Every structure is written in C-alpha cells, then in structure tokens.
C-alpha cells in the first residue's frame, strides 16, 4: 500500500512537472494571468466601488457570488458539525443493528 501511494504521488508529481514546463516563468508580469482580466479590477476598483483594497472589492463585489458560496460552505460545515456531533435526546432503540 505504501509503495503504491509513493508511486501514485510520484506519478502525480511527474504529470505536474510536465505541465509546469510550459508555464510562464515565475513572476512574469506579462503572463496571461496578470494581463487578461485582472488589470480591469485594478483600474476600475475605485471608480466602480470606491474601495481602494482591490482584493475586497473583487471578493465582495465583482465575484461576490463566489463569496456567498463560500459563506454557504462555512454554514454547511456548521450544519454538518451540529448534525454529526450534537446529541439530541438519547438515541434509544438504535434500529435493528
């Protein structure tokens, strides 16, 4: 099992290294990631949302729905914990295990 997981891990790593060969170099300011969408946020954040912290304005406004989803994830985790660990009235009977 251990050897198998080592092999799996190495395979995943190898695939990732293969993919990384064509990546833009680290810190390249003209990589597509930094030049396609994100300059729009930096340029227009103050004009659109009057918020100097671009991260906040993207987080809560441009991509606000993601954040709603994220809050829902947290809420789901809370519900899950209540569902799993909180004791209700004793579980008697326990069905027919």
């Amino acid at each position, binding site marked *: 099992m251990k050897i198998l997981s080592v092999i799996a891990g190495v395979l995943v790593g190898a*695939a*990732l290294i*293969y*993919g*990384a*060969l*064509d*990546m*833009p170099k680290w810190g390249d300011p003209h*990589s*597509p*990631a*930094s*030049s*396609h*969408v*994100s300059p*729009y*946020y930096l340029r227009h954040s103050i004009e659109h949302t009057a918020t100097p912290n671009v991260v906040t304005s993207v987080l809560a*406004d*441009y*991509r*606000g*729905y*993601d954040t*709603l*989803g*994220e809050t*829902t*994830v947290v*809420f*789901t*985790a809370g*519900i*899950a914990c*209540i*569902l*799993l660990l909180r004791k*209700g*009235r004793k*579980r008697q009977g326990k*069905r*027919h*295990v």
Partner: protein
Amino acid sequence: MTGQLPMLIVVIPLISAFLCPLIGLWRKDACYYWLILALSACAVGSIDTLVTVIYGGTIHYHLGGWAPPFGIEYVVDHLNGMMLVIISVISLAVAIYSKRSIEEELPEKVVYFYTAFLLQVTGFLGIVITGDLFNLYVFLEIASLAGYALIAIGEDGAPLASFRYIVMGTIGACFYLLGVGYIYVSTGSLNMADVHQILPQLYRSKVIITAVSFLLAGLAVKMALFPVHVWLPDAYTKAPSAASALIAPLMTKISLYVMIRLLFTVFKPSLSIELLPVADIMVWAGVIAILGGAIMALAQTDFKRMLCYIVVAEVGYIVGGVGLANATAMKGAILHILNDAVMTVGLFTVAGIVVYKTGRHDLSDCKDLFKKMPFTMAAFVVVALSIIGVPPTCGFFSKWYLIHGAVIAKHWAFLAALLLSSLISVILFFRIIEIGYAFRPSHGWHSGGGHAAAIDEAPLSMLIPTIAIAIAIILIGLYNQTILSNIIAPAVPVL
C-alpha cells in the same frame, strides 16, 4: 421579474436553507413543509426556465451586473436546462418521500437534516447552472460537504465510509481546482465561454494537456469511475435511505454533466477528441466500468450495495457513450443521464421502503415482499425492466442509441460490454424477484414473528413518489421522441 428566473432557481433553496434552522426553532415539523415549498418553487422555476430555453434559446444571466469575464455568469442552455429539471424534480420527489423514513431513522435531527438536504440541492443546482469554472468549484464543495454530513449520520460504519469519501472527494476537488489553476495561468480567465475562445491558440501547450488530465481525473473520482469508485458503495449503502436516494442518482450524474461541459464547451471537441486520446481512454474506461460494476453487483448479497454497483456500471455507460464521440452515441449518453437519474432514484426509494419496513437491507429480506407490498414491488419491477432495457420503459431507448452509436463507431468491445451488462442485470433482478415471490411462510429472516407480520404496504408519503417515479419511467419511454428532438438534440455538442 422573469429575467431573474435562472438566479431564483438557485437562490430560493439557498435562502430557504438559511431560514430552515430558524423555522426549526419555532416548530420542528414546519421544516418539512418549508422544504417542500422551497423545492416546489424551485422545480416550477426550472421547468419554466427549460421551456424558455426551448423556445428562446440560451439564457445568460450576469450576477451583480458585471459583464462576463469580470463577473460571474449563469448560462442556461438545453443541456443544463434539462439537468436543472432533473435535479429539482427528483429532489422534490425525494423530499416528499423522506418524511417518514427520517422520522424513523433520525428522529432528533430532523431540522438539520433538512437544512443539509436543501444545501445539497443548492450545491447541485449551482454546479449545473454556472458558467464560471471557479464558481463551479465552490458549489461542488457545498454539495460535497453536505453530502459528507448526510452520509456520515447513517448506520453503523457510515462514519468510516464518509471519511473515505471525504479523503477521495477532497482529492477529486483539489485536482479539479488544480486543473482550473493551470487553465487560469495559461489563459488568465475563469469564464467558460471566454476560456473557450482563448484556448485554441494554446492547444499544443503542455499546460493545457495537464489541465485536461487533472480536471478529468478529479471528476472521475467524483463520478466514481470504476478504478476510483471505491468510496461509493460503502457510502451509499450506509447512508440514511433518504440521503442515499438524493445523492446516489444526482452526484454521479452531475459530475458526468460537468465532464461533458468541460470537454465540449470549455475545450473544443477538436482538442478533446483529435489532439488527445481522451475519447479512446474514455471508451475503454467505460467498458471496464460497465463490466466491473456489473460483475461486482453480481457478487453482492446486500440489496443497497448491489444497487450501488449498478450505479457504477451506469456511469460506465455514459462515459463510454460520450467517449464514442458520434452524435448518436452522444444522444444516447445524454438521454441516459436523464433515464439513469430517474431509474436510480426509483431503485433507491424502493430500497428505502424495504429498509423502512424490515429495518435491514440484505437480499434475503426481500422475501415475500410481493405479497406484502404489491404497489412498491410493482414500481420496482418497472424500474428493473427499465434497467434491463425492455421497451417501452425509458432504459431501452438510451441503450438503443448507445448500441447504435457503438455500431457506428465500430467499437465492438463497448457493444459487447453493453449487452453483457444487460444480461447481468437480467440475472440480478430476476434473482430479487424470485426471492420476493417465494411463497414459503416467512421464517428465519427475523426472530420476532410478531414484527414480521407488521410488514405491509409502505405509508402513502413514501409510496406516492415511488409510484410517480415508476410512471415517469414509462412516460419518458413513451415520449422519448419528443424529449429527444426538443431537448437533447440541441443539447448534443457539435462535433
């Protein structure tokens, strides 16, 4: 207000989920009606949206009023319109069905169960409707987390099954996230349509090849494709019956939908099929999944577990059908998503009724059931016939298209696997029916004789959805031409 409909489909269950614990503080039993109300509204909305899509074409909805590459966009076309209707209607049926079984199995946790139920449905709907790669991840996580919780509260052994599901599911989700990251690094965008436009210049890039493989690997874990299906049987067997009836039909189908969406909407088919050997791999994965699932199903003595392996086999049908990559097979695959969702929910509702009445889910517990609950078992026979593929039930038609597609693609191994698995399904279901018809006096399966006599027809709130599903199976079979020409034919991606 009608322009807001695609949004409301997701937001109504979302906000209802937030309010559900508050209502539970006021009155516990009100939660059930709240759930039904929310899901009915959602179902009506999604049907209306589908109709709008059929008559008016694809709907785009910009969240927060931001134009697509900058904000998040909802896109509803024929394919995900159909998925929305499937999800909302099936979850409504399961919700109606869940009342008695939850009161029996988890009497003290009703409120939070329903909240998690609503969140689960929200996650499913959000995955299906979105047009943004990262938003999909977020909703995938909502659905997964709710699923972990719903599975873990099941019977003995459920927590371990759920834990394995957490580990596997996290790997799957992380691979998906990684794939999205690779796409983002090379394109700079997260919007599906935008990525679709930018990508063709980058198809030779190693980054994209890695991204495709990681996305598909992640989704394969989520959809329980054969070698990585190990989490599925345990999880769905041990979950409470209402939860497994909700998750088993939908989670795998939704991952399949995401796969189709990625392969044909985000990437161009030219990449998925011609440049990379994705299609071939998928067909062979499908063949292996079908055979593996069917054979494993044959080896089971547990009723629910057997159904789980059938689900694994059905995933193979669809993956293989998509991999065949011709229009007919694709039609079959998409029709099979619809059919299989309905059939699986039928199977699991019947299994839930058996659990509710007998308290166990071994195959031997099915003894005499035909005499004791004729309606339930009639529904079961309809579902079984559909899975075997007997006309006029709906399973026949999708299988027909898949077989036809296999013939066109001259992929004989897939054809053979399809036929073989149908054969195995015949054996499986006739074994159950034989056990069910054994007219010997019931002894041995339960020590308490008085308890055995108590088994009779299921309560109405469980029976009605089950029967409705059986009727739906026949109706889909009868009207399959209408569905095909109106919904599925436009949904098939242009190859």
